[in-house]
């Protein structure tokens, strides 16, 4: 892995465990993940795999009653031990998130300018004039005009609103940008625009980007490295291209096979048989064993070792040392 220079990682998650009341096993079970400044890392998985929880933990957004272990360092500081004031400072400054559905994420009753500036204005980081100037600059950076500041969300298309959302996330000049399925709620053309825009902005502002998606193809297209997540664990990690061309974990392979392709012959879409494991049941062995065509007795008894490939029987030979 090529870090451009030895700086403090934008995001450094070490052995993150997260337990919810009423669940038999941790929702996140020892997640390790880093995002260097200026780097794009994708976190891929099904619904319920824990990918959104992982990214939200970077802002200290934990579900009520959650208990945690491990550490989540943003720009070198542990989010899990922060008090409310530090957390607020983190959220208006070093880390910000772009949410899935901009229509739901932006208050329809307040103007766009209000949405963009409220984080920095209400915490006294910037005065009104400075905040407005910065908002106009960032609107320009995402390809929108300053006249939008006076508009209401209802007057904008979904794609425009997601650009506004991205501009809003950049207001505090963050070192870490979290994008939680930022294109899922958009139409296809807007999706491509938003993806291209995120790439440009990362280069221009040097922001580390953690891109959460269920779309492995999209993840490979945008990111330097990809982590595949299943049932609260990272099962495979690696450079996007290698992972896409030559998946080692049976789950990654199954996920790739389940991605609908334009060049495929028409017919039934491939799907992964079975369901992800129930949170109410404890797990022994590999979480994917029940759905895995290659599973053996060992897989049901013993949890596989850590990444790059958390599998007893990785595809294409032995778990090689990359």
């Amino acid at each position, binding site marked *: 892995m090529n870090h451009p220079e030895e700086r403090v990682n934008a995001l450094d998650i070490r052995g993150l465990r997260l337990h919810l009341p009423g669940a038999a096993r941790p929702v996140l079970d020892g997640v390790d993940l880093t995002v260097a400044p200026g780097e794009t890392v994708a976190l891929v998985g099904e619904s319920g795999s824990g990918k959104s929880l992982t990214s939200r933990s970077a802002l200290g*957004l934990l579900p009520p009653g959650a208990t945690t272990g491990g550490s989540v360092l943003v720009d070198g500081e542990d989010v899990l031990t922060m008090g409310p004031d530090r*957390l*607020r400072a983190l959220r208006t400054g070093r880390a910000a998130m772009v949410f899935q559905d901009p229509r739901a994420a932006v208050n329809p009753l*307040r103007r766009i300018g209000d949405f963009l500036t409220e984080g920095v204005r209400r915490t006294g980081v910037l005065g009104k004039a400075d905040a407005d100037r910065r908002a106009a600059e960032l609107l320009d950076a995402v390809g929108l005009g300053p006249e939008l500041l006076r508009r209401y969300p209802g007057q904008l298309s979904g794609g425009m609103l997601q650009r506004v959302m991205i501009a809003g996330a950049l207001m505090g000049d963050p070192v870490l940008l979290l994008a939680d399925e930022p294109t899922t709620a958009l139409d296809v053309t807007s999706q491509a625009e938003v993806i291209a825009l995120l790439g440009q902005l990362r280069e221009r502002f040097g922001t580390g980007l953690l891109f959460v998606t269920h779309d492995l193809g999209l993840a490979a297209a945008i990111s330097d490295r990809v982590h595949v997540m299943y049932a609260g664990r990272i099962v495979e990690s690696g450079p996007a291209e290698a992972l896409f061309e030559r998946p080692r974990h049976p789950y990654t392979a199954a996920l790739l096979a389940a991605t609908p392709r334009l060049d495929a012959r028409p017919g039934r879409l491939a799907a992964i048989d079975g369901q992800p494991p129930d949170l109410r049941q404890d797990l022994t062995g590999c979480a994917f064993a029940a759905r895995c065509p290659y599973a053996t007795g060992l897989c049901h008894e013993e949890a596989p070792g850590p990444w790059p490939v958390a599998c007893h029987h990785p595809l294409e030979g032995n778990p090689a040392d990359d």
Partner: protein
Amino acid sequence: MNFLRFAARRLAEMAATLLGASFVVFGAMYLAPGSPASFLLSGRSASPAALQAINEQYHLDDPFLVRYLRWLGQVLHGDFGRSITYRTDVSTLLADRLPATLTLVAMALLVVVMIGLALGWIGAVRGGATDSTILLTTTLAVGTPSFVAAVLLQGLFAVKLGWFPTSGTGDGFADLLWHLTLPAVALALYLIGMLARVTRSAMLEALDGEHVAVARSRGVPEREVIRRHVFRNSLGTVLTTGGLIVSTLLVCTILVESAFSIGGIGQLLELSTSTKDFPTVQAISLLIVALFMTVNLVVDLLHPLVDPRVTLGARRSEA
């Protein structure tokens, strides 16, 4: 659609509605049992000549439509006729009594809005035992009719403790406010409960919105999140309820003014109904209808300010 066109159309609608209301108001008096003549004679047997004179003075022998049109013509010129009981012009009578009623309604409205919003806000934001207490109290308030509240408040604060006068309107403005405090509270109690509950549930609904979680995730301080995203977003519901509240105040003031002997429009309506003083009843009824419609118009005009997604006249196909 522009504001002036909308307002003009609504005013035309109001005029048409008022015309219809005037017909109903005028007709209803004649459907009710008893006649003004028999009240004027107050049970005494009168000579046919005296009866004839009364009928002529009030045009009671003319056909219904003729009487209605004559009355309507006078009303359009601002002349509501002469009160049978008070023997003065009804318009003078109304002008004398309107200030007390309007002051009372305004005071009650102020109390309702301040306390109702505060209770709803606290209940929604605090939750837990505070919320339960507020829910219980407001349930009691909603279950207490204003005339019952009037008697209870009079008994406790006026008779027993002697903090406030039991009745009347006093002399001068400050004295008026002092005299109107208990009546305003009696009038407000039920509506405080209603507004508190509406505000609470609207805020709880707004609290669930994703944009609230997003605002928190962007580091907006909690107090500001509640003010700018939760309370602000419940204002539409509060405004709609506000129209209902003012209308209810206008009706309930009849009962409360009678209970506290306040010489306002409400008490006048009650007295003139029981004495079949029909010009006065007709004038007050029309006035109340007009006030109702004005309140609705104001609510409709304010709505786009509270919610930018609402455009004036959008419920019409032309929008």
